[in-house]
């Protein structure tokens, strides 16, 4: 055998190896994450894919969508500002008791969904709580307990039955002067869902959006396993009370531990019962699990306001919806289908009857 003959095959094989290595290297899965302050909270989007540029663009488009929904639903801008003109919520509020307002398709969908769940819950969920929320002042420098008279007065302006929607004209109308929309319990969820749909349309198949604690996942994570999502312990810092494994779904939590103030040892939190005018009283934390992030957002608030047994029962009767909650008596309750799927550490400080 001649020696020279070995060089060519060696070079050939080494070249092939290097080419193969390069191809696999350039197609490796990358992670891209980005944060934005939006809707009065921090939104984080994390995506996986093989093309860095495509990932960046997909996330930018997703944020654009969220910005758009945020602009339409923000009721805070002052009159005369460009943000005010772009906000359907502001225009509807300004025209309360005056005239119907033509709104964006997405605004209409949000209002239609809100009104539906308001009726389903017999008022436990209501987006016309604006006057009540203004009274309590959460989010401002001086949240305080309003007088019973002012609460009664505000309550007379709270009723989704007086939110008139016209599908043909695509208009929304608050029937009485002084009525005000607060879309805080649905807008973030809706924006998150639009963002995930935008990522999907951009070709992303693995993503996680954390919108101020509202979690929405697409597909599975980097290693092909389901995303591990913890439910924050409502009373212990740095702790989770349960762990879920999710794919293609949302987990939204309403709790009494985020925005609150205390007077004489009693806690007053920001989830006001639209029927009584006072903070809803029987739960510490409620997590709703379902595919659609907007629905998860609505139901999370809705279930928080309802008595725990009623909330669980309602969740059992809704298709594709699961619920996990801890009552103010420290009892863990959840829907049947979560049995075996949710991981509650055996040393938990809450009361948990595994058999139920």
């Amino acid at each position, binding site marked *: 055998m001649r020696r020279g003959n070995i060089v060519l095959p060696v070079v050939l094989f080494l070249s092939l*190896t290097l080419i193969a*290595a390069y191809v696999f290297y350039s197609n490796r899965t990358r*992670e891209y994450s980005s944060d934005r302050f939006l809707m009065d909270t921090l939104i984080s989007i994390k995506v996986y894919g093989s093309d860095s540029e495509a990932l960046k663009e997909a996330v930018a488009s997703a944020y654009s969508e969220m910005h758009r929904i945020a602009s339409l639903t923000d009721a805070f801008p002052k009159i005369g500002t460009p943000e005010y003109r772009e906000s359907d919520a502001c225009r509807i509020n300004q025209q309360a008791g005056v005239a119907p307002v033509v709104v964006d398709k997405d605004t209409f969908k949000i209002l239609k969904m809100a009104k539906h769940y308001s009726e389903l819950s017999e008022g436990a969920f209501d987006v016309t709580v604006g006057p009540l929320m203004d009274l309590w002042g959460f989010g401002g420098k001086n949240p305080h307990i309003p007088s019973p008279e002012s609460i009664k007065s505000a309550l007379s302006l709270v009723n989704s039955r007086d939110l008139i929607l016209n599908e043909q004209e695509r208009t929304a109308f608050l029937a009485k002067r002084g009525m005000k929309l607060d879309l805080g319990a649905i807008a973030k969820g809706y924006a998150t869902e639009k963002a995930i749909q935008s990522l999907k349309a951009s070709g992303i198949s693995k993503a996680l959006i954390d919108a101020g604690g509202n979690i929405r996942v697409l597909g599975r994570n980097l290693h092909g396993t389901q*995303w591990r999502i913890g439910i924050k312990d409502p009373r212990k810092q740095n702790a989770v009370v349960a762990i879920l494994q999710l794919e293609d779904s949302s987990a939204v939590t309403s709790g009494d531990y*985020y925005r609150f103030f205390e007077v004489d040892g009693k806690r007053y939190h920001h989830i006001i019962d639209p029927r009584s005018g006072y903070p809803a009283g029987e739960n510490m934390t409620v997590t709703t699990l379902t595919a659609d992030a907007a629905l998860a957002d609505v139901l999370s608030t809705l279930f928080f306001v309802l008595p725990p047994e009623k909330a669980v029962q309602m969740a059992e009767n809704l298709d594709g919806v699961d619920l996990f909650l801890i009552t103010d008596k420290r009892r863990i309750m959840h829907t049947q289908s979560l049995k075996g799927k949710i991981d509650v550490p055996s040393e938990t400080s809450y009361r948990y009857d595994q058999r139920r």
Partner: protein
Amino acid sequence: MSLLKHHTDMTRGDKYLLLLLLSVSFSLMFVLYGNTTIFHSKSRSTQAVVTVNGDIIRKINMPTNSRYSFAIEGSSGSFRVELDGEKIKVSEAHCAGQVCLNQGWISRAGQSIICIPEKIVIRLEGRTMLDAITQ
């Protein structure tokens, strides 16, 4: 003895086969490990990353050797961040709501303290057990 003789004589075909196998093994390494530690430059320790309006202003390797604090000037006043070993927290803030103060110490990778009015984020980065926390 004749067996030994055959063993030391490699044919050309054998050499090609050997090279082919080596090449395939080498490429497979990229396939199997390409998605994980070789190409990801994530370190194994935890870092506290402090950002203001998206700009990173401090990166601190955790755990720290001693307890200390530093201040950030925000639009509503001084904002003080305190570190102690594995833990970090906001010890002074003048923003409305003071949600960041309510959060207390954080110590695990993945956790973060956020001051929305000041757009300050203190995040612990590193290997995490959980992908996210719903709250």
